[in-house]
């Protein structure tokens, strides 16, 4: 049990260091961290890293196989695939963060309301969760997208608004077990308001599972975006996203294998990275797995 003493600034810094060390001691978590780190780095420094302008059309070099000039080949408009892949990392990073951010926020608020207030609030919210779970997510997303312009922002918002149910259930369960604890009772006796108890007392204790599910959710959001972009209803060309690059791969499957192989590999590795990190965090927070 942590005591009030342990939260002095010096100890705080040391604890953070210790946490990082402990996290990195698991090779799988470490590789997840490294992959996500590379993704962030690539996305931020894309203009510096990319050898070509990702949207520059070069009609003299159409559908060229990988060579020293174009490491991953060129596409149907002669654009450099490596450069497009590097800029595509921006989309993946953005989608992951924004969509999961929305889903986590909505899920946390609804789950907290349901778990904390119980009774009819709980029944209504959980019934809503059950209803949402009956729709195949991608059908719901497609139906909404059909009414909106398919832009990256709309995609992220819709993915976020259709992916909060898992978080809501999780947060509700956490609140159900936490709200009966002594420290919650103690702060209520001290006159804390509902808002203070929910956000100041209970939520901080439920952060770990929320963080784990958010990290695992990023991979799912990236997969959904890439599938939508692949189907032509996500990120629109010429903006490069890994999903819409694969559409071109499909159209040129017989003559240009590199268009299909590399973007998919990028998605695979990125999602793998987030999943490894998420699983690592889960083990890290799981008291049963501690020595």
């Amino acid at each position, binding site marked *: 049990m942590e005591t009030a003493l342990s939260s002095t600034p010096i100890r705080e810094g040391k604890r953070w260091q210790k946490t990082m060390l402990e996290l990195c001691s698991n090779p799988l978590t470490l590789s997840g961290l490294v992959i996500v780190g590379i993704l962030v780095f690539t996305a931020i420094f894309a203009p510096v890293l990319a050898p070509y302008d990702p949207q520059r059309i070069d009609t003299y070099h159409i559908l060229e196989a990988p060579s020293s000039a174009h490491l991953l080949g060129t596409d149907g408009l002669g654009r450099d695939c490596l450069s497009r892949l590097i800029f595509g990392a921006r989309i993946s990073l953005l989608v992951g963060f924004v969509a999961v951010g929305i889903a986590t926020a909505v899920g946390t608020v609804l789950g907290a309301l349901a778990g904390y207030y119980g009774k009819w609030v709980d029944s209504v919210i959980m*019934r809503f969760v059950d209803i949402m779970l009956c729709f*195949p*997510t991608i059908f719901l997303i*497609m*139906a909404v997208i059909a*009414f909106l312009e398919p832009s990256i922002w709309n995609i992220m918002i819709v993915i976020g608004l259709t992916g909060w149910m898992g978080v809501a259930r999780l947060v509700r369960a956490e609140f159900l077990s936490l709200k009966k604890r002594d420290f919650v009772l103690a702060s209520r006796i001290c006159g804390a308001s509902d808002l203070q108890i929910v956000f100041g007392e209970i939520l901080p204790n439920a952060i770990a599972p929320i963080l784990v599910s958010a990290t695992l959710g990023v991979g799912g959001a990236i997969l959904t975006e890439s*599938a939508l972009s692949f189907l032509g209803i996500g990120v629109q060309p010429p903006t490069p996203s890994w*999903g819409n690059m694969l559409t071109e791969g499909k159209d040129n499957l017989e003559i240009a294998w590199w268009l299909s192989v590399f*973007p998919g590999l990028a*998605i695979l590795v990125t999602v793998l990275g987030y999943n490894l990190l998420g699983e690592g965090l889960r083990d890290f927070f799981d008291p049963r797995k501690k020595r």
Partner: protein
Amino acid sequence: MGFISFLLKRILGLVPTFFGITLISFFVMHLAPGEPMSLQADFNPKMTPEMRQRLRAQYGLDKPLYVQYAKWLKGLVHLDLGRSFSPDRRKVWDKISERLPVTILINFLSMLLILAVSIPLGVRAAVRENSLFDQVTTVLVFLAYAAPAFWVALLLMLLFGIEWNLLPVSGLHSLMGYDQMGLFEKVLDWSKHLILPVFVSAIGGLAGFSRYTRSSMLEVLRQDYITTARAKGLPERVVIYRHALRNALLPFITILGLSIPGLIGGSVIFESIFAIPGVGQLMWSAVMARDYPVLMGNLVIVAILTLLGNLLADVGYAAVDPRIRTGLQEQE
């Protein structure tokens, strides 16, 4: 509480969920900028405000929302989902119902594949925890989780269809000479066309279910009654497959029900890649054409099917596990 009353209670419980599904579908339909018919109207340069007004009245869009909802709901109960916006102007229900069997067939086959492969895989991995076999399956599961299904489909098409020319990559059956084939040849032709789509739609489930079987088995194997079974000298086979697996697989039924929407959702992807005329492809083409009646019809029909699937799973669970219907087990 007997089984019949449990069943009745469950079915009654579905009623609000059913109305919720229709409400959300109806709400999504009214998200349309303007209204569902505005697209038709916008494409017509001769459209005057009076004509627009008449069209609104014809579609019932001038009435208050709750009247529109009641009318739509009434239609839904009679399987009347309106007519498609596409030039053929066919009934939405006809369009959906002719495509449903294909999607259900493929999802059913892939479910069989998932169960047939993932259960033995998960059991083996759990029994030999931390062995090489366990580690290899874990790696495969992680890869299958992270791989976009449509990308795997492309790679398989590249290898089996183009590189090795072993399997057809589009459609449900051959276009040339299909009518002259005998029954056996037809079945063979269908099977060849279905191998890749079924496999692709099963990938995610394969990963999820093997992982689930493994962890569920590990949990069960630690229980006292397993130790008892071993202590009284039962062969390991019997302990694993008769005592442990049965209990480990119980929650499977619920998970099967919950995985229905994911499977049907996945059909959008593989049906559009492999050019299979199912509900997913219909959904995709409806989005591309902004064919709102078809879109909404699809959404609501698939959700209701999911609801029924979940009911079936619940009933199945109660049938095998008496704790559920007697309410002895605490709700999650």
